[in-house]
């Protein structure tokens, strides 16, 4: 039996129909090629923000389309990059007077397909720049030219960029800011059980009892290391310290994302959040903004990721700026 409740034909298209129908005031669905656009945008915004990538990471990216965040999102098939034509058409649809900014997670397929779309836009005379998100510490030290993967930080970068875009920032300014947001962000993820392989219906890989995959990505790939489960407190502390240690020149103020990988409950995520907050407090780090929930999952993997962004003082306003999208929580004025 396939544990996933998905139609056999065109599951991504069906899910997008459901998303658009659930939020008719926020989103428009375009079917050929497939992409989603925001119904509203801040009048000051001069650059269209476009992101996208494989499906199976919902609410990323389609759930963050709306006023204050993305102008368009482009979904590929499950764990597969979107086609360049989707990116190209979505970008043309939402380009502002100063062009389009692509927010791309660092994966070869996404880089190439967004890159091809960017060349097509340039040929049409539409200015385009790219922000690459590459926060995953597990892929930092490998001897490859591909660099760190893009994972949980994507939602933080998209929120910060949305806030900055609504100040009327130009394309080059936004691209430079986006690169700084990404450079200030690091993540690590752990899994206790693999996600369901969508085609077969069974677990994508098996983990021996009592062990964890430490350093998983969001496409269900195995991690570089399998570790003995050290117990709740030691696991959360190890991950918190690893991410905090890796943060580039910190200001003492951070954004925190405690993110479920799909099958991990809010009960667990809030317990993790309590422990992480305590550890960060002991390190003297002030959490200026936080998200706790399932924002960037790997289908129904059981596990969680921690992301920190070292926050510059002038970025806080972008984080707290209003956003109206299907999945980004309403801002809370008091902390």
């Amino acid at each position, binding site marked *: 039996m396939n544990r996933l409740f998905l139609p056999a034909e065109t599951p991504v298209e069906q899910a997008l129909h459901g998303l658009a129908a659930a939020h008719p005031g926020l989103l428009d669905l375009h079917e050929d090629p497939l992409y989603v656009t925001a119904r509203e945008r801040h009048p000051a915004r001069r650059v269209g923000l476009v992101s996208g990538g494989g499906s199976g990471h919902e609410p990323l990216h389609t759930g963050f389309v709306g006023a204050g965040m993305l102008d368009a999102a482009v979904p590929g098939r499950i764990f597969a990059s979107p086609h360049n034509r989707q990116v190209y058409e979505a970008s043309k649809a939402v380009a502002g007077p100063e062009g389009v900014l692509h927010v791309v997670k660092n994966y070869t397929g996404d880089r190439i397909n967004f890159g091809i779309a960017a*060349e097509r836009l340039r040929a049409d005379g539409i200015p385009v720049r790219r922000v690459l998100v590459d926060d995953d510490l597990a892929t930092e030290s490998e001897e490859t030219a591909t660099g760190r993967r893009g994972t949980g930080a994507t939602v933080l970068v998209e929120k910060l960029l949305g806030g900055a875009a609504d100040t009327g920032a130009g394309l080059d300014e936004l691209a430079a800011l986006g690169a700084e947001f990404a450079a200030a962000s690091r993540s690590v993820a752990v899994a206790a059980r693999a996600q369901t392989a969508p085609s077969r219906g069974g677990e994508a890989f098996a983990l021996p009892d009592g062990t964890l995959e430490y350093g998983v990505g969001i496409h269900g790939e195995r991690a570089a290391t399998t570790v003995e489960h050290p117990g709740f407190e030691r696991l959360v502390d190890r991950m918190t310290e690893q991410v905090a240690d890796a943060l580039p020149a910190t200001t003492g103020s951070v954004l925190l994302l405690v993110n479920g990988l799909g099958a991990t409950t809010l009960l667990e995520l809030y317990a993790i959040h309590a422990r992480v907050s305590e550890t960060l407090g002991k390190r003297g780090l002030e959490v200026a903004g936080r998200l706790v929930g399932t924002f960037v999952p790997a289908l129904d993997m059981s596990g969680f990721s921690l992301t920190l962004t070292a926050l510059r003082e002038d970025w806080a306003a972008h984080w707290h700026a209003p956003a109206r999208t299907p999945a980004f929580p309403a801002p809370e004025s008091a902390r």
Partner: protein
Amino acid sequence: MTTDQSLVLRTYADAARTAHATLTALDQLSGDGDFGDNLREGLDRVTAALDAHPDRPPYAVAASVFLDEVGGTSGPLIGLLFQELARAHEAHSDERDAWRAGTGEGLAAIQRVGEAEPGDRTMVDALVPARDALEAGSGPREVALAALEGAHATAALRARRGRASYVGQRAVGFPDPGALGVALLFWSRARARKEAPGELTVYLPTVPGTEPPA
């Protein structure tokens, strides 16, 4: 001009059919084996589109087909080369100027997207010598030879980019299919102008598991 462009593309489609088995066998050594299919089917779609829309600029037709409809990564990258050739043929009335500008801009776009450098065993290794020959003012025959030699020289290279980078040493000794496939475009341009440096089959390597092309 439009007739010339159309003839180059139809010649390229014939060349892709002739080279199909070789390109497929080369891609099976280092990739997923679909490059020969993608190139042949893409160019067949191009010739069908040229029949249906004889008034549209041929390289722009080829660009939309390869960018929108051809699978894999190499197909859309070749689409970028067509896109820049189309733009250059609009901007330059002289055929050599158009090829010099279009190849240079196409190579630059492909490198921006694929982030490949010369020597990485990709189509860039055929395009760089072709671009250099065009910059030096060479005619179609010399440019075709430069592209084919660049493609053949990838046989000594180990891949660092693209899917072939995962298999490393295994494909060494045989040229990169993407480089050879792009070189065929420059051979086709020379053939269309009756300046080809000999028959295409002379330039197709023998790969284990395929019959030498007839």
